[in-house]
């Protein structure tokens, strides 16, 4: 939201010149505000995805249901063109009096975040050694206890990998919000494309890639430290 007095970015500015200028970071159009907007939306999306998918996927896996649906759900959701979904939702949102944000972009991003978390949680619980599960039942754990204290604990690293993939995908896709009446980090790419300002496009792209990279790194660190002793699961191919 540009307010009176904030000058547009000059076209001949250099990429690093703009990035290193403190004025680019401060103010309501600045990078810090845009960053905050992006992070908040992405965080909410991922949290909602976790809160909805982890219980559902764990229960389905624990009770050995829903095997076939898993693969198809993942493929289907990855095939949905996010921009089209969000674009279709915007006029509906406007006409219903809900404004440009947050619903269209929130729903579109949520669709992206649900599958990796669902799939990894499901697979992780499913892969837990049945011997361990039986042993804990034999030791007198209730079903809920088995699920929570045994299966989930062992499945953590794979689940965290799923959350990581979801978070990175959401952060990398969130820029389309700027093309649908919103702002966030995508605004610099949008403004640069509209104003023929290549430096702004490149700088904007770098900011987004940087945030996505930071997100990936942070989650990898969390994964490394959240492992139960001596258990390491391979989580490469299930989702990306």
């Amino acid at each position, binding site marked *: *939201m*540009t*307010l*009176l007095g904030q000058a*547009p*970015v000059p*076209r001949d500015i250099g990429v690093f010149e703009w990035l290193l200028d403190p004025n680019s970071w401060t103010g309501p159009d600045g990078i810090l505000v845009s960053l905050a907007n992006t992070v908040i939306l992405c965080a909410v999306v991922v949290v909602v995805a976790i809160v909805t998918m982890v219980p559902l996927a764990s229960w389905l896996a624990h009770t050995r249901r829903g095997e076939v649906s898993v693969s198809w759900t993942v493929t289907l959701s990855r095939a949905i063109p996010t921009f089209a979904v969000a674009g279709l939702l*915007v*006029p509906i949102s*406007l*006409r219903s*009096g809900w*404004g*440009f944000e947050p619903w269209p972009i929130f729903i579109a991003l949520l669709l992206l975040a649900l599958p990796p978390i669902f799939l990894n949680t499901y697979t992780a619980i499913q892969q837990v050694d049945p011997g361990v599960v039986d042993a804990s039942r034999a030791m007198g754990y209730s079903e809920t206890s088995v699920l929570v204290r045994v299966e989930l604990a062992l499945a953590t690293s794979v689940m965290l990998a799923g959350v990581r993939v979801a978070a990175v995908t959401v952060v990398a896709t969130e820029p389309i919000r*700027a*093309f*649908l*009446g919103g*702002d966030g980090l995508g*605004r610099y790419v*949008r*403004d640069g*494309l*509209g*104003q*023929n*300002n290549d430096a702004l496009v490149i700088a904007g792209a770098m900011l987004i890639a940087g945030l996505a990279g930071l997100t990936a790194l942070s989650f990898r660190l969390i994964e490394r430290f959240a492992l139960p002793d001596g258990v390491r699961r391979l989580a490469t191919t299930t989702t990306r």
Partner: protein
Amino acid sequence: MALTVVLTACGDDSGSTADGPTIRLRGQDFSEAVTIAEVYGQYLQAKGYDVEILTPAGYRTEAIDGLRNDELDLIVDYIGGSLTALAPDAATSSDPDEVVAIIGPAYEEIGATLLDYSPAVDGDAFVVRGDSPASTISDVAELGYVFGASAQCFERPQCYLGYTDPAIYGIAFADTVTIEFGPLLGEALAANEVDAVVWNTTAPQIIEQGFKVLEDDQGLHPAQNIAPIISSNVLAEYGDQLSDDLNELSAAISTDDLLAWNTETDIAKRESDDVATEWLEAEGLN
């Protein structure tokens, strides 16, 4: 295959059979420009020219680059927009002849010839809802409106910068929103998300939704007649016949025609090529 070639060669016996290179034409990627490209393209095809109407893509920058890089031979642009693109530091004017005096030579420099401009105009429109108390843009100064426009408006002196410049309109907007150019502007205006948008004068939704175009009392908006620009090499191959034909078409298009075309494509949801064919038939031009 050979039969088809022979048939095509014998087929054009209405009007002149022009011999020369293929004219590659590409419209900018919004419905009005697509229709304009179809009108010019089909018109020339009916006259016997070998025209290739390429898939609409890109905007002014890509169109001008296409001419410069010899990927396109014919484009149709809005003269005020050409001015901003080719001579960003030159003073704009609401007088088309002044604008043409600058962009004509600018196009020559990139190997293209600017032909006569049409009376048809699609310029910038400062649009508000029908119930707004304002009737000129100056009236908006103290209303504390929320302003919506596309990204490029915010860095143009003839747009946002001019509206907020104390020496010109000096409007104090309460807030601004960047909205992709197109019907979303109307949706946002109708939904009260914004109070004023910058649209184009021939957007059919303006009339359809009862919006108001405010008068540009300070003369900020530049002249935006449409005009064809042809590759100088291609023009040389065809000679005066081509420029005469194009000028004849340009003279026949009016602003009302642009509005009618847009109403067909954006309100009635018809396709640009059909709209173009119908119009040319109605005008006896194909």
